């Protein structure tokens, strides 16, 4: 090989450069269309992302190292001070939680009365953001938790204040999160004040969402809090999303243009929460309906459920239905 190296080929060998260009451009366009329209390339992307993980790790290293350094050199007094502050905050939050726990229990009992199924609990996991920079014209971040920690595609991501976005691609060790402000992201929301449902779409600016599908006469005012409605099936209902900041109503347009500011600190957070929704087993009404005709005591069963709420709330984890027990 060494001997032949002295003479460089003047003319390119193999297929001509033009052919190669045509093939490369066609392939790129095909990939673009498939990725944009059909989202079929997740597997390929995950594999490649796993192979290039060392690069991402290296790019993140200076930041991680500087943080580690500042952590080990931090002052004892500072640490004690932070510890004290956190302890106080923890106490305060616990007191508030007591109130919410009783409210949640009451809410569950009421929902059980009207036979509505309800998601009981959410499991959360804290993940750290990677400091790696991505395409500046896309709103996305990388988190340092991946499929190995149970992260899945489409999983909701929150910060301490509100909804941040959802997981777009997962590799075993990290995951890409699309923020709610990305132009490709749409989130079903409702106004907390009156339950008005609509969709919040990203604008590509980190501090702005738009609600394009609200008629001019819809009941929405500046300062309204938007929460997730849970209708898309991906986000659990009831989490805060954004505050309405600006409403332009022009009489000749069918829709008013409404803008909202995300409550989450999308550009400042360093830690995010990943949420798993745990469905409970309350909704066992179909079996009851099946047994009701056999008993021929259908009118009797509604009064029977009335003194029930206290018991049934205790029996949420169990699969046996108190009604069927009483009827037999």
């Amino acid at each position, binding site marked *: 090989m060494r001997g032949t190296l002295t003479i460089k080929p003047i003319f390119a060998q193999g297929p001509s*450069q033009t052919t*190669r260009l045509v093939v*490369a451009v066609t*392939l*790129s366009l095909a990939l673009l269309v498939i990725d944009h329209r059909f989202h079929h390339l997740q597997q390929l992307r995950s594999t490649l992302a796993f192979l290039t993980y060392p*690069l*991402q790790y290296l790019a993140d290293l200076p930041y991680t190292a500087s943080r580690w350094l500042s952590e080990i050199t931090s002052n004892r007094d500072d640490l004690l001070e932070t510890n004290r502050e956190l302890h106080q905050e923890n106490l305060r939050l616990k007191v508030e939680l007591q109130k919410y726990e009783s409210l949640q229990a009451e809410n569950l009992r009421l929902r059980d009365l009207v036979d509505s199924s309800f998601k009981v609990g959410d499991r959360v996991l804290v993940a750290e953001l990677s400091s*790696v920079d991505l395409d500046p014209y896309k709103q*996305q971040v990388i988190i340092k938790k991946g499929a190995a920690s149970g992260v899945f595609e489409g999983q909701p991501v929150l910060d301490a204040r509100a909804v941040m976005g959802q997981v777009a691609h997962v590799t075993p060790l990290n995951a890409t999160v699309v923020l709610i402000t990305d132009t490709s992201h749409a989130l079903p929301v409702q106004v907390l004040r009156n339950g008005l449902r609509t969709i919040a779409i990203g604008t*590509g600016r980190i501090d702005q969402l738009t609600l394009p599908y609200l008629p001019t006469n819809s009941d929405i005012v500046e300062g309204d809090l938007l929460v997730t409605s849970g209708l898309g099936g991906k986000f659990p209902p009831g989490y805060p999303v954004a505050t309405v900041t600006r409403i332009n109503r022009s009489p000749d347009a069918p829709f008013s243009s409404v803008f909202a500011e995300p409550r989450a600190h999308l550009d400042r957070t360093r830690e995010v929460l990943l949420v798993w929704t745990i469905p409970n087993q309350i909704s066992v009404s179909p079996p009851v309906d099946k047994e009701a005709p056999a008993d021929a005591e259908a009118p009797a069963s509604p009064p029977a459920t009335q003194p029930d709420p206290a018991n049934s709330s205790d029996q949420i984890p169990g699969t046996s239905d108190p009604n069927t027990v009483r009827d037999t």
Partner: protein
Amino acid sequence: MSEGRLVIIATLCVAMLLTMLPMPDWAQPFRPQWVTLVLLYWVIALPHRVGVGSGFVVGIVLDVLTGTLLGQNALGLSVVTFIAIQLHRRIRVFPFWQQSLGILMLLVIEHLLALWVTGATRGVAPGLNYWAVPLIGALLWPWIFVTLRKVRRQFRIS
């Protein structure tokens, strides 16, 4: 042979690191197209080894790293490497400032292709800042050229 390939891949990896390295928010829109610049050097220096295929593969890896649609950077880089291969004999003999102008043209073409793709898929219109990026890249070109030439001579890659 394979040694040389490792060196080329290493320089491209450094360029990718520079592309991902955290920068303050204000500086992010001005990040030069490091990977394109390094790739262009290798295409002009070794057109028989680094060509359209390499551009495509590097582009795909860059797409995965920066989270853009798969194919966006691959499209731009394959087109730019193709043009660079056609022009490499001329660019090699240019003085630095003229080389920079040629590189500026190539960087603008790559950026324009990327803009078309983002425009066709999402409709975000970046500001005038967007066009400062190729300009910064062209200004950096002489230094990149000199550094990589030193690397190439050091490792005797041909």
